[in-house]
């Protein structure tokens, strides 16, 4: 089913998203990948504040290529989510609303999604030029020294994603493959 949602995303909205839905996101989301997650995790361990209020936010696992002049961002597709699996449950427990990436997640992440009424969304991997067109503004808000891995605040319009793991724990990667497997 096709749906349009705004970001940040409330628990109420997240609960309406079902595995297999095709969703367009408009609003504000944040990028963070390996190195930024490591730093956020270290900040939490030291009892410090995160560089953003994580509640209801959408984190896009993405490190863009540099922007050409006059453009907000370069190529901007998803990176493999499983590398953030170690860090995701704690952020979900702190109120993170949704994650956008690609690829499988661990059971621990799936459990944290269900426990917190969150959602895992996939963007099409390797479609970074197309996805960049949905990003209207990009500003580094933390960890500037990490270059492409810095945390960026993005203003997006109709960013296309697919619901993979919904708040009931349904997983499209498992169900959709079964439908087409001929073994």
């Amino acid at each position, binding site marked *: 089913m096709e749906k349009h949602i705004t970001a940040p995303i409330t628990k109420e909205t997240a609960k309406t998203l079902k595995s297999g839905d095709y969703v367009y996101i408009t609003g504000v989301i944040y990028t963070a990948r390996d190195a930024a997650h490591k730093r956020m995790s270290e900040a939490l361990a030291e009892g410090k504040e995160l560089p953003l209020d994580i509640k209801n936010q959408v984190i896009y696992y993405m490190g863009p290529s540099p922007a050409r002049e006059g453009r907000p961002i370069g190529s901007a597709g998803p990176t493999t989510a499983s590398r953030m699996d170690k860090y995701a449950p704690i952020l979900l427990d702190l109120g993170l609303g949704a994650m956008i990436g690609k*690829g499988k997640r661990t059971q621990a992440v799936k459990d944290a999604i269900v426990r917190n009424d969150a959602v895992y969304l*996939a963007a*099409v991997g*390797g479609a970074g*030029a*197309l996805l960049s067109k949905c990003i209207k503004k990009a500003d580094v808000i933390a960890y500037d020294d990490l270059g492409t891995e810095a945390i960026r605040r993005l203003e997006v319009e109709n960013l296309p994603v697919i619901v993979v793991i919904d708040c009931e724990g349904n997983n499209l*990667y498992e169900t959709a*493959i079964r439908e*087409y497997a001929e073994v």
Partner: protein
Amino acid sequence: MRIINVEEITKNIKEMCIEANHFLSKDMDIALKNAAHTEKSPLGKQILNQLQENLQIAGNDMIPICQDTGMAVVFLEIGQDVHFEGGLLEDAVNEGIRQGYTEGFLRKSVVNDPIIRENTKDNTPGIIHYKIVEGDQVKIKVAPKGFGSENMSRIFMLKPADGIEGVKEAVLTAVRDAGPNACPPMVVGVGIGGTFEKCAILAKEALTREVGSHSEIPYVAELETELLEKINKSGIGPGGLGGTTTALAVNVNTYPTHIAGLPVGVNICCHVNRHVIRTI
């Protein structure tokens, strides 16, 4: 003897890095177009159509096809009658990568040390494979490799008794485990034989072979066809979201090996299987 100034290598590598990251080779383009027609899953078809659109935007607006513009893998086949002047060849290659990734607005994805992990900020060093061949020409292949798929690649040290069935099972295991992580539809490079490191290099080089081409060895060509069919029956599909297009090609390269071994390297590449080849 032919003298080549290494500046010429630098200039070519720079251009090839930029070209590879914005334009796919014709064989890949055709394979992706065909897949969009034959895919049975509606969502799979939609994804494949998005990939077509992505390629058009990349070429027209000069935005890299994928934000992971890769670690630059460079194959150099150097004629043994060539003499290089003007500096060290390796430095010239890395200078080409540096200029290509900096001036071409490509992402700098290389860290200086696997544990310390400081970004080198110019995507150097590259990975360079040298081969000395006959003649006085230099064949350059630039194949930027993204790590979504690289991370899903595998080496299997099989036993001779495992035979061809063991090879098939190894490849299918690697592809199944890769699933959505490797951005399917994938291209699967397989290296059979040699040693531990040789099978990996064979697999890597197999990825630069034209999609749709087949090995000259009859049993290997049959193996390529059979594996592609089996992979496309796995159900993984475009984006790993279900469908009949999981791989666009399986390219297998072989090499003699030891009486005690059957090494198999499986190098998985996403649908952004980038390579540019030039001969100077």
